[in-house]
């Protein structure tokens, strides 16, 4: 870090002694910074407190997940997908097994599809809860994150009952899921839904309509719909800019072909709209979980698949609507047990690209407001 005083500083060029000159300041935000959501490093050029330029530096969390997938059999690779977007492992697994199923032409049984929908929507709620909690923490409100993590805790407990692990659940399987719901799980989930409905209302009362929150977020980080499409934004980022595009609706997969989703769209395109979209999506996901539990069909939870899974030679692209946007897997198989290539199209990585564009001209305090509204997960950006 450069000095800000005369101790070791060479004399400024072009400035007469005794004269003052102002210059732009370069500030390294991160990778160890409380609000860069992991290990993102932003090189900010500041003019006073106004951001002139921003260069995101990524790669601090690179673990080579795509390479690891190439060296694991398909079944063994599912577990590594948990670590890509570590806030929504269920969704990652669904994308991966969905790609393999598409390549192999397997249609999982209806019950498995419904179980996937329920777990996916719960995971979406959990991910949005973290997004909103940390976002408000970035804006200086301390309480929401604890309330949201309390509710998220319930989801993680449900997952623990389901897959044996709270976080790296390793629950999805090619052709179905690992276990059926254990005894009493649905009642537990129902109870959680009822509680969460109240808690969501409480959270809404605490945050929405708060004048400081509105002043901090409205009109900040505006993305218009053309720009959003041009940058390839997906998920809440895109829908907050007024583009009605949701893979669950526009390219429905699995049980979403039977259960209709109401996409949550807002027109404002600013940070506030992104926050609102996430809040509305949580309510919508809650509705979907309840509908799916009501209509839950019986039957097997998995098709019979060979233990040594050999996807046929070929390639496919399968995308689901993750909590952050379009999570796609480009899966190439050479006919062996190992995928020849499994490319992850991470929504966080794509959504992050618009950050420098959004930051220019904003104040330094808005950097965290905008970065938080993107809801990136560095595990997925760096993979």
């Amino acid at each position, binding site marked *: 870090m450069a000095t800000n005083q005369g101790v070791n500083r060479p004399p400024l060029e072009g400035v007469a002694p005794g004269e003052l000159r102002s210059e732009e300041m370069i500030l390294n935000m991160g990778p160890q910074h409380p609000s860069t959501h992991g290990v993102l490093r932003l090189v900010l050029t500041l003019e006073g407190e106004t951001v002139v330029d921003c260069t995101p530096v990524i790669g601090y969390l690179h673990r080579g997940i795509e390479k690891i997938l190439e060296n694991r059999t398909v079944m063994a690779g599912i577990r590594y997908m948990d670590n890509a977007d570590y806030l929504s492992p269920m969704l990652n697994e669904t994308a991966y097994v969905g790609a393999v199923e598409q390549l192999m032409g397997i249609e999982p049984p209806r019950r498995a599809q419904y179980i996937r929908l329920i777990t996916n929507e719960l995971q979406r709620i959990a991910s949005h809860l973290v997004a909103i909690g940390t976002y408000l923490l970035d804006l200086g409100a*301390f309480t929401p994150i604890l309330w949201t993590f309390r509710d998220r805790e319930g989801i993680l407990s449900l997952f623990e009952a389901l897959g044996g692990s709270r976080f790296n659940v390793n629950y999805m399987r090619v052709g179905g899921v690992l276990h059926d719901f254990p005894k009493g799980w649905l009642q537990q989930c129902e109870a959680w839904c009822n509680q969460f409905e109240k808690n969501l209302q409480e959270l809404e009362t605490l945050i929405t309509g708060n004048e400081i929150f509105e*002043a901090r977020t409205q009109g900040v980080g505006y993305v218009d719909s053309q720009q959003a499409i041009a940058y390839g934004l997906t998920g809440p980022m895109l829908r907050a800019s007024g583009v009605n595009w949701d893979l669950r609706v526009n390219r429905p997969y699995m049980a979403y072909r039977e259960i209709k989703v109401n996409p949550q769209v807002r027109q404002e395109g600013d940070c506030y709209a992104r926050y609102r979209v996430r809040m509305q999506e949580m309510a919508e996901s809650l509705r979907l979980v309840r509908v799916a539990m009501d209509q*839950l*069909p019986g039957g097997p939870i998995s098709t019979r698949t060979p233990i040594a899974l050999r996807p046929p030679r070929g390639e496919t692209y399968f995308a689901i609507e993750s909590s952050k946007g379009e999570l796609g897997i480009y899966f190439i198989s050479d006919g062996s047990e190992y995928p020849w290539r499994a490319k992850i199209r991470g929504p966080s990585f794509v959504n992050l690209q618009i950050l420098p564009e959004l930051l220019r001209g904003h104040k330094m305090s808005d950097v965290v407001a905008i970065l938080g509204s993107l809801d990136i997960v560095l595990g997925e950006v760096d993979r």
Partner: protein
Amino acid sequence: MSGGVVLAEVWWEQLLHGILSWEFLEFVVVFVSIFGFVMTSAVILILAERKVMAWMQDRYGPLHTGPWGLLQTVADVGKLLLKEDIHAGKIDKAIFILAPSVFLAPVIASFAVLPFSPYISLPGAPLATGIVYLIAMSSLDVVGVIMAGWGSNNKYALIGGLRSAAQMISYELPLVLSLVSIVMLTSILRDNGLGTIAIKDIMNFQMAQSWPGKGNPVWDFIFEGFTPWAWFILVQPLLVLIYYTCGLAETNRSPFDLPEAESELVAGYLTEYSGMRWALFFLGEYGNMTIVSAITAMLFLGGWSGPGVAFLTAPGMAIGWQVLGNLLALFYFILKIYLLCGVFIWVRTTLPRLRADQLMQFAWLILIPTTLVNIVLTGALYLLLNALGVSNVVFLVVLGVVNWLMLFGFFWVVSRATTASTRRAVAPAVRARQRLVALAPSPAAPRLPEPERAGVTGAGASSGR
């Protein structure tokens, strides 16, 4: 005999008399206990804050150190005292080391003029310019913060220090202006028309009205000297709000905690500090919180007045009752301070943080004009009603009604102002959208052909629940 011996005798006697005198002992006891209060108040407040915040946020807070975690802050202080004193390289050493003391000293000095009870107070309490002294002390804090920001040789610290300089100076103005009306009120209420800026006198205005229904000992005990209807909070509620808001800003508390905004500036001017120096900053901050609450309690909530105080400390009572009355007064005063500190904590758990420019806007465009209007209005109302020849009581009632109306008007204006500024901020986005809509009728979803549905239709089997 030489003169030296005589001098020595005098010096010796003087010292002996000085130390053994009742006044000196009293001073020592009061000083030590008040200094102890300042020091421990921070520890108690930190624990209270953690516990209250935990309660509001649906968690336990500190639980394991001592019974119910009561010793947590004690352990923290011990840890901070024992920590290694770390200096970053290339700091401006003298400034860096001096900054915590410069920050803390005015806070401790402020306590010198606080009257804790009718009897317990430091010799500074009768100071005739109490308010001015307090304001001067609270403005000195900013020097320590800037020193810390500059001396740390860290960009986050520098930005934090400069932000806090701008913030503290801006909020000093409405803070002082909000107290002007109180001083005006005292000059109106006094017969000779001379106001006062001595804290004890202002407090007396709020409890000097003797209880009219004298006779019944129970009612006398409660209401003698305890007249909540004469507290200035009823006459000037708007000023309490503004003073308290400025107090939040002065003490760098949420939602004005920009100088140490964790999510932006890591820890602001505290970034490079650790161990005891860091603790000194914290001590100063919580001490400041206590000071702001104490001033609010004294100027607007009647200070140490409460049921029984004036009755027990009346001139004719026995010494035991006097002591009890003083302790009671101390209890009421500290209770009021901690209740007001509770509001600090409550605000912190509820609100997000403002942005630097919004912070300045709020001070210069909303708070300062409001306080100025209030001063003019108080004066004009007095002149008007004085010309009509009504009594002071009617004036106070009218002023109170007007001020309560202004309070609700203030809320309305603030919400309108934020809405308007938000609308201005969103305007380019709205215009861009209108332009887009004008260009292309519907930028709605590009609808892709849906893939053919695989066979998952048909009635499902019975629910597997």
